[in-house]
């Protein structure tokens, strides 16, 4: 899959290009459809208020991450209407992801999502999250091992 290009040059920016990464991020981090739509809209609204010339990509990661940290951890995981807004791959099981959610820290989850699921350039993640490359990679590696252990058991 192609890497997302969020280097938006001009204001007003294209909302469509932000919807997918944001909604995916919130969908997989909060595991709640309604909340993910709500926070996506909230992030977009915040991004619209930024001064012209701001780095939208970095700010998107920063604002979305902040909102994700502020939001409550949902107790009710997605059970219905998954295919209504989000079209998941046919052979994808969400069981390991739900299990992974219970075990992993939010920081590792966020690094994994931005880096390997949404595939935002690493430099933007480091800048937005204000962490070093080593920290980011360590978090991703640790999260991958945890996620892999769930899928490993299934095989």
């Amino acid at each position, binding site marked *: 899959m192609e890497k997302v290009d969020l280097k938006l040059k001009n204001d007003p920016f294209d*909302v469509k290009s932000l919807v997918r990464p944001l*909604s995916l991020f919130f969908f*997989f981090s909060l595991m709640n459809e309604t909340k993910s739509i709500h926070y996506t809209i909230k992030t977009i609204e915040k991004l619209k208020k930024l001064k012209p010339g701001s780095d939208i990509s970095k700010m998107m990661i920063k604002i979305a991450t902040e909102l994700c940290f502020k939001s409550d951890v949902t107790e009710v995981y997605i059970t219905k209407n998954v295919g209504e807004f989000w079209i998941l791959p046919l052979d994808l099981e969400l069981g390991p992801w739900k299990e992974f959610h219970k075990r992993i820290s939010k920081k590792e989850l966020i690094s994994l999502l931005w880096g*390997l699921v949404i595939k935002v350039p690493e430099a933007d993640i480091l800048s937005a999250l204000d962490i070093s490359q080593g920290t980011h990679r360590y978090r991703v590696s640790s999260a991958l091992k945890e996620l*892999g252990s769930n899928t490993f058991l299934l095989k």
Partner: protein
Amino acid sequence: MEFVKLKKNKSREMSDFVASHLLFEYARNTLDAERKKGVEKALEATPELQNEFIKLINGIQYCEKLSETLINDAAIKQIELQSSQVNFIVSRLRWHQWPLGFRWLVEAGVVALLLVVVLNVLPLNRIIHLNDGNDSQTVVAEVDRKRKLILDEASESNVQAPDFADEEVKQPTTLAVQNPVPPVKPKPDVVPIPAKPLVMAPQPMPTPQTTAAKPASKSGAWIYRGQFLVTNAEAVSPKIKDKIKELGGQKAGEVEIGWLKTPNVYYFHFTVPEAKLGELEALLKDYSVGKLVKEAHPRVMADGIIRLLFTIEEKTAEVKMDTVVPDNK
């Protein structure tokens, strides 16, 4: 220029710990050749590392699948629409472009509206009278209100405000002296003495226990109570009433002095100068042998003024005393 020839050291083997931390880089193929070799050697040698590597690969593959998730166009449109609706309303208002005076006017209107809403919703009366709840006077007034229903029949003509709050009529028994608050029923075993024209109901005299109750009351907080049985109460009662007025007596409750409470029972509740007490007692002795009993009472009277509460009853009515429930008027 000559280069110093360095001795070639043996390359050190990579530890499992380091290899474990380099697995992610190895999986992404971003390691240099030397480290790559080191990791491969460690992987061959350690089965635990192999397990970790498999987990890592599994995780990466799972993330790849997750990243293939697509979003329905309807969802994108919905988000765009909701986002634009909020934006649209805000932009249409153009609040910052409004004239300053008009903005102030709108703000003042909003504040006034909020105030009206708050004032209507908040129970301000309760908040203002919050401290009044502890006032004992209010409690006395509540007691009066309960008894007004009984008074309505008789006290229509008494428009003047009473000088004192009503209290219950008490029989001058020792029980009443010991505990002045609850009303005490008159004893049914009262036997009239037919020989004398004016007979006082045989009542137990105040015992020394009355003195024990006195220290609890304040100075001047007294009431004189009594019950007098006379023959021809209808004729005697107005005479006593006139004499009381002569002595400077004033009604103390809501009803007039000598109010006909029930047939053959006349109710006297009044204040009189303390100096006139002797005269009053002498007057009452002329018609009856009854005696006034001094009791402690929470209401404090002015200096030199005493309060009396007694009934003049027809001698024959004594038998029905059981059924009479005396109320304060």
